[in-house]
């Protein structure tokens, strides 16, 4: 099971056409992510990092090449299947938390379960269990506005886990948090990665992320510049900070 690829891309290219200009954001990306890995995607803004991230998350389709999520070619899926994939297979965590403001923490966590067809009682039980797991067991009736940034991101982590996804996609999950809270979220993600065996893929600028990642993909200019394992990382962090 450990050797299974949960995400695989084959020569993925993406071209954005803006007026008369065609911009090649991805220039042939090949990567494989195994089940249960903790992956960081690093790269400067404009490197194609977000585009790649959207492809892996089933949010966008490649112009050329193939993206396989759980060995399913994303390009072959219709709107219903894509929605199903997003609902059950992938959990999303955003930089700006993106909780639904009119709903309580618990309702935010149970919404994906409702979409997945779970009964109300069952989803409430599971929602409370997930919120307790992320350390918010006593705050589930609070609205997002009544929670701190770190707490909102914890709710988002619980929501991402709602339907036991295979993958959690985190887009700069620490980008709007202070150092300490950011570290807490990173640790929480690592814990979920270990306990729930969920694959975590995160796009980030945050060097703290590297510490916990199994592998780091460096994206530059629409290509994977290099892939590093955690064991090799310590040597290189110095140079990164110098960039």
């Amino acid at each position, binding site marked *: *099971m450990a050797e*299974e690829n949960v995400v695989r891309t084959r020569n993925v290219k993406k071209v954005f056409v803006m007026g008369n200009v065609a911009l090649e954001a991805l220039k042939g990306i090949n990567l494989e992510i195994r089940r249960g890995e903790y992956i960081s995607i690093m790269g400067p803004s404009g490197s194609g990092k*977000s585009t790649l*991230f*959207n492809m892996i*998350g089933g*949010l*966008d389709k490649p112009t050329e090449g193939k993206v396989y999520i*759980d*060995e*399913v070619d994303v390009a072959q*899926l219709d*709107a*219903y*299947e894509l*929605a*199903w*994939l*997003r*609902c*059950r297979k992938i959990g*999303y965590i*955003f*930089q*700006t938390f*993106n*909780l*639904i*403001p*009119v*709903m309580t923490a618990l309702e935010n966590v149970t*919404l*994906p379960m*409702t*979409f*997945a*067809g779970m009964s109300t009682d069952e989803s409430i039980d599971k929602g409370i269990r997930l919120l307790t797991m992320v350390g918010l067991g006593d705050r589930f009736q609070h609205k997002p506005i009544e929670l701190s940034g770190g707490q909102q991101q914890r709710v988002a982590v619980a*929501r991402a886990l709602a339907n*036991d996804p*295979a993958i959690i996609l985190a*887009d*700069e999950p620490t*980008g*709007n948090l202070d150092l300490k809270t950011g570290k807490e979220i990173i640790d929480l993600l690592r814990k979920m990665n270990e306990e729930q*065996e969920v694959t975590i893929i995160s796009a980030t600028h945050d060097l703290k992320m590297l510490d916990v990642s199994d592998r780091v993909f460096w994206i530059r200019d629409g290509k994977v510049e290099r892939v590093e394992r955690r064991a090799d990382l310590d040597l290189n962090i110095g140079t990164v900070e110098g960039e």
Partner: protein
Amino acid sequence: MADQKGKIGKQVVLPLSKAVEISVKSIKTRLGRSMITASGIVLAIAFLMSIFVSSSINKALLEKGSAGISIQLQNLGEEEQVKQIWLVVLSLLVCVVGIANATLMSVTERYKEIGTMKCLGALDRFIIKLFLLESGFMGLIGSIAGALLGGLLITIVSSINYGLEVITKFPVIDFLYYFVIAVALGTVLSVIGAVYPAYTAARMVPADAMRSEI
């Protein structure tokens, strides 16, 4: 997890009761905004209802009222009524445009919420359902308020003009009939006004949820 590998299902659901719950919450949370949006429909339906009720009061007084009032009423021209109908139709149209405008704005404001819902697995039609329900509820409440307001005001104005006979000869059946029509019309128009914005919202791509600017 592993046993589901390679198998993709299709079924994603949003039960009506849950959709109703979410849209009612949406209205409540943005109460101020919702009231301003609904005020357009309140005024238009109040106007419509006042025309309805005043014509049925006039009819009732002509048939059953005393001779003095009948002469007063016969002096009201046909032309006046046609003008009023035009005004009502115009005010209803303006109201639909107003609702479309307000809903479009709320769609723009909530792009992140919509994108997030789609990331969580919402289908286009869930988004359409939520926006139409929200607008429908606002229309329903606004129309009830407007119909009561319009009916009440015109009854008061008529009693001042023609005396208490308006109250004793009040056409209750007609009033209820027009009330239902006005409320139904207001609700339907609110839903119609929200169709285009809801469609725009549904077409937003889930990747919009990732955008951190704006």
